[in-house]
């Protein structure tokens, strides 16, 4: 459920980038002071482990389909929140770069959804209290299942929000939610079981490993926890603020969907959009043309005062299509030309 570049608006993308960049800086800073330098290769190799473990699969009982290990939760348990967050961020970066899974702009969203929640929210406030000292396999199981499920629910919910706020998708809020949450509930529960299994296995096989890892991660001590919490809260407020400002100025996403679901059926024939001269000027000069100076007010009003997008005029649009075809053809020719030239030269 990686958020993808293609669904993203620059505002949402850059906001979450800023948020996660700040947390990355914070985590690195924290970690630099805390860890013994043995942890550096360990973290890196565990990131690779997360990938490698996904190559091993199991059959989910009764379904015949197969599952594999997630990541954020097990890392948090094994490494503590800061290190786990950085590893998860690295894993997602590699996915974005190597697999183009998610994408570079969406990296901020994905790190937020899959890294921040499990490491900084669920692990300290849900997993730790539930698992207690982590000595009882039963408690570890409960804690893992609940934590993994909650973390993924939060992540999935964020994907919904991020998508709708970006305004590229027409999916109504509720339908989208109904699509995402139940699937991720199942995935989360399965992941929780596996996480608990692996943790308990490691505990019985090599108890010293968990002990030594626990020793090099003092987050359990609550002074730091409070700071983490404060930072998290500030970031949440900032992000929330930006997002909601953005949502309020950008009605074609969330509001429109909600409105649509709540049944104001008198939907206009023509789409909303950017029409006035000012706005066209805006579009041509601003980097984020959609988002600034968008007229307040709801969809219906907007639709009334604006002609259909983009000034429906057969000529212009036909010109657009023809132009697109010509452009694509030229691009293709350029590519092929260079290729055959290179081929002849080498």
């Amino acid at each position: 459920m990686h958020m993808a570049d293609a669904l993203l608006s620059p505002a949402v993308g850059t906001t979450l980038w800023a948020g996660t960049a700040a947390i990355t800086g914070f985590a690195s800073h924290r970690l630099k002071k805390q860890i013994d330098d043995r942890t550096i290769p360990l973290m890196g190799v565990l990131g690779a482990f997360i990938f490698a473990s996904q190559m091993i699969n199991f059959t989910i009982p009764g379904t015949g389909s197969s599952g594999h290990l997630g990541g954020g939760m097990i890392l948090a348990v094994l490494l503590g929140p800061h290190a786990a967050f950085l590893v998860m961020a690295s894993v997602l970066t590699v996915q974005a770069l190597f697999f183009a899974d998610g994408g570079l702009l969406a990296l901020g969203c994905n790190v937020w959804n899959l890294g921040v929640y499990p490491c900084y929210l669920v692990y300290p406030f849900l997993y730790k209290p539930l698992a207690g000292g982590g000595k009882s396999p039963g408690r570890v199981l409960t804690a893992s299942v609940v934590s993994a499920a909650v973390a993924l629910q939060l992540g999935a919910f964020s994907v919904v929000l991020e998508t709708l706020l970006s305004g590229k998708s027409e999916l109504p809020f509720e339908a989208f939610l109904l699509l995402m949450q139940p699937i991720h509930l199942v995935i989360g529960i399965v992941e929780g079981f596996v996480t608990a299994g692996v943790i308990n296995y490691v505990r019985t096989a090599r108890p010293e490993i968990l002990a030594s890892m626990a020793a090099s991660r003092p987050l359990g001590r609550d002074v730091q926890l409070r700071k983490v919490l404060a930072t998290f809260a500030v970031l949440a407020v900032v992000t929330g603020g930006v997002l909601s400002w953005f949502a309020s100025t950008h009605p074609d996403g969330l509001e429109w969907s909600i409105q649509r679901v709540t049944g104001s059926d008198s939907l206009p024939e023509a789409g909303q959009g950017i029409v006035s001269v000012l706005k066209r000027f805006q579009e041509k000069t601003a980097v984020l043309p959609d988002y600034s100076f968008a007229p307040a007010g709801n969809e219906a009003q907007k639709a009334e005062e604006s002609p259909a997008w983009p000034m429906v005029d057969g000529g212009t649009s036909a010109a657009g299509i023809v132009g697109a075809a010509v452009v694509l053809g030229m691009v293709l020719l350029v590519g092929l030309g260079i290729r055959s030239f290179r081929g002849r030269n080498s």
Partner: protein
Amino acid sequence: MTFNRNYFDIGRLDRLAYGRTWVHRLDPRSKVVATLLYLLTVVSLPKYEVAALTPFFLFPVLLAALAGIPARFILRKMLIVSPFAIVIGIANPLLDTRTAVVIAGTPLSGGLLSFFSILLKFALTVGTTLLLIATTSFPGVCHAFRRLGVPSLFVSQLMFLYRYLFVLMEEAMRIVRAREMRSFGARGAEIRVYVRLVGTLFLRTVDRAERIYDAMLSRGFQGDIPTLGRSRMAAADLLFVATTVGFLGLFRFVPVTEGIGRLAQGVLG
């Protein structure tokens, strides 16, 4: 076997990155910056924009052609990327049925336009990101990150992750193979066995980390991963970034496609 495919694919992508064209030789920072600007620009195009997206294909196509990256490989990789964006986007034509434009008598709905727009953006962003790695190499991107101010601890993680990605994936593959060989499809894929396999892999990973740490200490490691001053930004790099910015500005703010279309219509008509 699907995982093997995935793995070998990144192996191939990785191999491409060690090519020797001038695109490969550009400073990694310039390519990272150019790619980010490119992605931002593409994504900033409005929801219903379709035609104006097409000139942006020039950037990845030029890069691929100049760097000798096989287009078919990139295209195939694009297909196996998680189709989340497309799955979500495909709802648009169903939900947004208002006619947005009539072309040659055919009405096109807003949803259809926005769906096409998502498809194009998907192709552009995914293709260009893959090309970044294919022309820069992962270590190159890491060095660029470090020099662009990303915390060094994080970058170190990335480098270790990259280095051991291949080692551990092969290890995992061999474990899977060993299990398959002795399980005859009958059993062996239950959660119980799975947990042990992953647990074993984990324990060995931890042991390996320990050995790596020993090896690092043996070579004077003192807590910071040192780096060598890399190449300097050369004139070629500045030129590359400047050209990219010009290109992005032009296609973002001037309706080039439409102009060309008019021209073509004029010529034809």
